[in-house]
């Protein structure tokens, strides 16, 4: 059994509870965590005792998204918007490879996973964290859950899964602004299955896994695939293939006036101050704890 550093892997009640476990960073996703998640899913896939996976986050948050504090890049050369001494070719190529891996390989791998993955979302569920929770087969939210893509406010992309689940109008309403969506609104627009009191979140999820465990595994797998592969056939794979290309373009499309402050904050500390500054013009948010002006 692999020795996980950034996730917890706990078999119980016919399933496994996988916890994103970088509590200090509110489970921000980095390469180590994503690759441990790959391994954990492979382990669960090969374990016949496990009939369903529950994915949750430590410390009251699901995940705040991609870890943007990790910065090994040289400072950006303006106005070009690429790291000093680096060609656009190199950065673009790196982003394309990374986004094809994250979106096309990892996301499709989870989407086509042969056992149901249930996301148990409490607290912040933002950016890549939201993509992760929403591409799970079933998503249950605690009443304090907040979904959003605030990263689009600097230079980053949305995920087509929002359109696939919530529809064109709702997806654009939230992905063009990065605005927060609370659990109730998420339920209304079809992002999630159910809203439960925070104290009941994991219990609710395990009850689903236990009910699923009463159905023959092969039947569960086939019925999963009727949905997931069906949507893949209907064009989801194509949409994600394009999404991966556009993601690289979006992340590279840096403008000094939008991105210089972020980089300074990453370099010199003060990421929180940057985020406050970035998000202030958007407050109050339409939903969630920031819905009332501070």
């Amino acid at each position: 059994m692999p020795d996980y550093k950034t996730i917890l892997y706990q078999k119980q009640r016919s399933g496994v509870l996988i916890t994103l476990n970088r509590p200090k960073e509110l489970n921000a996703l980095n390469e180590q965590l994503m690759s441990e998640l790959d391994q954990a899913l492979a382990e669960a896939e090969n374990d016949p005792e496990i009939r369903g996976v529950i994915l949750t986050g430590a410390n009251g948050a699901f995940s705040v998204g991609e870890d943007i504090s990790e910065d090994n890049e040289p400072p950006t050369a303006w106005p070009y918007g690429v790291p000093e001494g680096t060609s656009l070719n190199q950065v673009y190529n790196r982003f394309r490879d990374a986004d094809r891996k994250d979106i096309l390989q990892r996301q499709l791998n989870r989407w086509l996973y042969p056992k149901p993955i249930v996301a148990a979302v409490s607290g912040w569920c933002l950016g890549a964290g939201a993509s992760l929770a929403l591409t799970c087969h079933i998503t249950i939210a605690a009443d304090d859950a907040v979904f959003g893509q605030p990263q689009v406010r600097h230079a980053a992309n949305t995920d087509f899964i929002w359109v696939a689940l919530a529809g064109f109008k709702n997806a654009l309403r939230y992905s063009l602004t990065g605005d927060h969506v609370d659990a109730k609104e998420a339920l209304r627009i079809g992002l999630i299955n159910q809203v439960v009191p925070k104290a009941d979140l994991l219990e609710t999820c395990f009850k689903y896994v236990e009910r699923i465990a009463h159905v023959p595994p092969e039947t569960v797998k086939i019925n999963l695939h009727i949905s997931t592969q069906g949507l893949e056939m209907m064009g989801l794979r194509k949409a994600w293939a394009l999404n991966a290309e556009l993601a690289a373009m979006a992340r590279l499309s840096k403008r000094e006036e939008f991105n210089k402050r972020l980089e300074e904050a990453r370099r010199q500390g003060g990421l929180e101050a940057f985020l406050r500054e970035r998000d202030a013009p958007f407050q109050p948010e339409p939903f969630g704890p920031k819905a009332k002006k501070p």
Partner: protein
Amino acid sequence: MPEYQEILYEKKRGGALITLNRPDAMNAISRSMIKELHLALDEVEQDNEIRAVVLTGAGRAFSAGMDQGNRAGRRRDIHWPYGIVHGQTAAEVIDSWRIDPRNFRRMWEFGKPIIGAINGWAMGAGSWLSLYTHIMLASENAVFAQPEVRHGSNTSFMWTLLGGYKNALRYGLTGDHIDAHEALRIGLVVKVVPADRLLDECFDIVERIAKVPPETVKINLQVATLGLDMMGLRDALTYDKQMSAPAHVMLREELRKPLDDARANKGIREYLQMRDGPFQPEPFGPRAKKKPE
């Protein structure tokens, strides 16, 4: 009737002959030429006497490709190591490559048959333009290729659609020249004819098409073109268009800078010699035997 500067428009034998007419520039495709081509197609659409279009080029080329000459900020003043023109952002460069001002797809979905009469060089976007025609005949001296991939540019999915996967990759990855007979073998053209017979043979087809009811022709055209659209061509071309951004902006200094320098200091001929010299002799066409000069 519009005043054309860069094309010729002539009604004859039940059809219209549209000639790309910048012979001094090997009919390189400029933005204004594309505009005129679309105006001419507007005219064809409205003229009931015209049953089909023949598209050809003046002089020794069908078209040498996109006009590289007058586009601001494309090749000049690239600041290394960034690979971006002075003063521009990556955001702007990428964005500018994501649009498709050519709209060749309109020709594909056009309601009257367009017959390509390929009379010589059909390079790069000139080859793409030729591939979007519905029926294509080539003269003995026709050459198709995408040499622009050698300096950093994308191929078109139309090559895969028409030439098949293996052939498209064979030529799309190298930019190698193919001649009229190879084009016939892989399915790009339907017939190879002597140069002096090319237009006559095309208009023979126009006249035969003109004997079929127009609505029947349109429907049968669209059974093929819209059918391939439905089978996924439209998706592939959408993806293709987006891929032209990475293809054009991902430049390597060691490969690109010497070419740009040669072009700036010595001119286009030296630039092309440097780029294409290592690939000669070509497998087909007039450069198939010659050693680099």
